[in-house]
């Protein structure tokens, strides 16, 4: 494929997972306590997709990466100060909710519309990337909806590896149960990939890359259109999973001992 891919990565933002996340019901429905004030990060699953996209674009000349993101503009801007330093991309912003309580169908439809409106996007070369899950919403449906809306029916979820074969076909490893992979080959673009963790480390920050990205990031944020989602599902109740976190700090414990403790705990 000499002309390269057009890779669109869909990535939302989520509150930093180290923060205290407490569901509360406000006038506008469910949300997290102080959600707007909590520091946000790019959804980790989408982050893996973005790094994979940048790596693919680097290896296939002529490729280009867009990051399409829906979230409150001011919060997105802060997240860009980190993400835009990692890999080159062009940003498309939808100024709307990033909440995990928003409806996946509505979100997917809005994102699909924004993707379809990207000027110069060649759908015959289009690879739509995203996370197969989200750290704020476990719906696992958004990427499918986007694909359906865009008329892309080649869809893969839980992707850990994407390989370009010599004939231009794409080989995909999807996570299936029991730690195994489903190994598929698709003849080429367009296709949708919901990424699991992929295989790449997080690239280091480099303000020099950031300075280049910012030339396009800031205008994109400025011209972001407000998006209003129709009211989604009604939640009759919301609870944090009743897990009990018991943290012990143990230094220099041998691996065998750690493994034994986990096994004992599992079989207890």
């Amino acid at each position, binding site marked *: 494929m000499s002309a390269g891919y057009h890779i669109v990565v869909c990535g939302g933002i989520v509150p*930093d997972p*180290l923060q205290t996340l407490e569901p509360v019901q406000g006038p506008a429905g469910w949300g997290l306590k102080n959600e707007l004030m909590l520091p946000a990060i790019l959804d980790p699953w989408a982050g893996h997709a973005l790094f994979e996209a940048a790596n693919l674009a680097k290896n296939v000349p002529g490729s280009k990466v867009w990051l399409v993101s829906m979230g409150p503009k001011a919060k997105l801007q802060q997240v860009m100060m980190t993400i835009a330093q990692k890999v080159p991309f062009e940003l498309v912003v939808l100024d709307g909710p990033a909440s995990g309580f928003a409806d996946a169908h509505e979100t997917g439809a809005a994102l699909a519309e924004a993707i379809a409106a990207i000027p110069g996007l060649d759908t015959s070369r289009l690879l739509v990337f995203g996370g197969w899950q989200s750290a704020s919403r476990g719906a696992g449906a958004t990427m499918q909806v986007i694909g359906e809306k865009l008329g892309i029916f080649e869809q893969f979820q839980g992707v850990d590896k994407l390989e370009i074969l010599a004939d231009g076909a794409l080989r995909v490893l999807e996570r299936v149960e029991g730690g195994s992979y489903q190994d598929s080959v698709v003849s080429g673009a367009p296709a949708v990939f919901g990424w699991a963790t992929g295989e790449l480390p997080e690239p280091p*920050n480099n*303000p020099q890359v*950031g300075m280049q990205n910012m030339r396009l990031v800031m205008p994109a944020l400025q011209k972001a259109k407000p998006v209003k989602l129709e009211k989604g599902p009604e939640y009759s109740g919301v609870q944090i999973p009743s897990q009990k976190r018991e943290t012990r700090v143990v230094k220099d414990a041998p691996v065998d001992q750690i493994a034994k403790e986990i096994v004992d705990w599992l079989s207890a």
Partner: protein
Amino acid sequence: MDTLRTLPGDDVRQIMWRFTDRYDIQMVVQSARSLARGLVARLVAEGARKTHEWTDHKAQLLEAFDTSGLTALFMDPHQGGFIDGPKNLALALVAFELAWVDAGAATCSLATNLALAPIHERGTTEQRDEYMGRCVPPLPGEDRAPFRGAFALTEPLPYVGVETNTLVGKLRVAKWEEGEEPILQVDKRGRFITGMDFANFATCAVDTDDPRIKSSCIVIVEDTDPGLFDRGAPTLKMVHQLSSTRDPVFNVQVPANRIVGGYTVKDGVIVPNFTHSEIIGAVFHRTRVPVALMTTAKLLSAVEPVIRYQRQRFRGGDASEPGTPKYELGLQAKPDSVLRLVEIWAAGEAGASLGFATARLFDQLDPTEKEKDKVFAERGICGPKSQLTALRKVEKQAIEYLQMEAAPTRDEARFAELGQDTLVSYALLESLANILCPACKLWNTGNGATVMREALALMGGYGITEDCPGFLFYKWTDAQLEATYEGPEAVQRRQLSITMTNEVFLTRLRIIIEQFAALGEAKPETGATVVAKGLGLWLWTIEFLHRAKDPSGARLYHNRRQNVTFPMADALCWLMASYCQINDVMELAEKGPENAVVAEGLEGTLGFFTDLALVQAARAAGEASRVCASMVYGFGPQAAEELDAFDALRSQLDRSMAGAALAKDRAAQALTQVMIPEALDYPL
């Protein structure tokens, strides 16, 4: 009433410290932060600090600084950097972020910048481009290692330390052939030189030891120069172990074009364009600011781990049941534990405001200083003495400008004329920088070290163990170095004793007093009245000390009378820090509503920061008042009318503190409510 809901995020800090529009700086901050809370924290947790030697383990830092853009931060774009223009604020923020985890790592990242600083400030254009360019990490495809440097001023006892004039490092002419560049013999021993394990070059302060060299200077030596470039023994320091420090010995031959800032030849004598002390003055002026902010970062970094410790103190086991105050609030149920934390946070806030205000001032000063140098060159005014005389002449105009600026009406033409005068602008900025720079270096580090001890105390026994979250013990002891290197407290106090009686500054101070008195009328909750009264008392006392005498008839305010000048310098620092803190709170009040994220919960955030400002103002004014009283009464007896006048001002000051203790109660209450993350974002 709304109260502080979460710990302040980047949006709030960007407004308070004025870099909302600087995306380049925001990115550098994120870059430094992830390095600090990643690699740096891991190194500390893995015990990298436990040796004086520079190890491969520690050396990972250098590469990380290179790949994350921090090394190139100091350079201009044409040299390979990425930020155009002055970088004082950016460098200060990087030091702040790194020191949030470990100040030694911050020092390590700044070492090459310190080595380059003499070249950056006073080097020739060729020297600047060459050395700055070589220190930029290689770009993809380039096959070279980045150059790293060390700055060598301090010498083995009994020579250069606090006093930087008695240099034993020497420079002689080794060879000078007709029409050729002279070759110089550099003979310099260093003590406590940072970055010496890996430095490829050092900028050395040396005196002349040859009638053919006119004065002292700073000279660059490289590790490939002919002769001895011995890195020496490692310093057995007990702090900042993530930086390298050794006592090197240099005995090398270098061409004369290594004299920083160049030289001329006059009657067969090499005349360096700058003496070592002229260059050092310019260098430390700037590099002291990031050091000040290192200690400050640590105070602010202590807040979250202390809150977590306090809240979790009695959880687990059967010591208390969920739902009981003991379980939910832990130690925070006891007022003193949160009140003390308020004091720590307030001191950190004030230090940050003072330090970042100073860094921003230098960003303004840098271009003005270059313009000033151009004007002097055009007018043929060279040499420090004649420049000083010329600047003294414009002080009157600078004062005129300040007075016009503050007046309700003015002669606009004259005001514009003065505003465009480079030398006037320079005098205005420099007179303030001459206060803020030593003030932040002195107060943030010296007082900060003391306050850091309080933070440790709140952790109980945990505080003095390696397991203390946030590395608080290391942060406390490290603070002592920040108070010492790049000029210990005595040096800052000495500088302030001279600069704080400069008339341009005193004029500005009178205006600040008026402005803050007015602000205090409108918003008494900010503490502006307290600061205005405190500064008023300080000003009265300074004037008194100039006219009063002790019983032996000796003048009270005198350079050699450090029992007068030094405490007065300390008192001013407290007040200036508080002044800057209130300014930042006002900025948040003004700009906060414009940012959607900050606007959410602004009432609570602003109320909390206002309370902190009042708490700190009362603390600062109390300190200033104590110092002033000890000056006015301590060298007595003095005339009754003088004492009456002082007492009247002091009692006004005391009365202005109304409500400060209530503000502290409110702030303490807020700390029992504020939401904190589940866990610290860097390891133990």
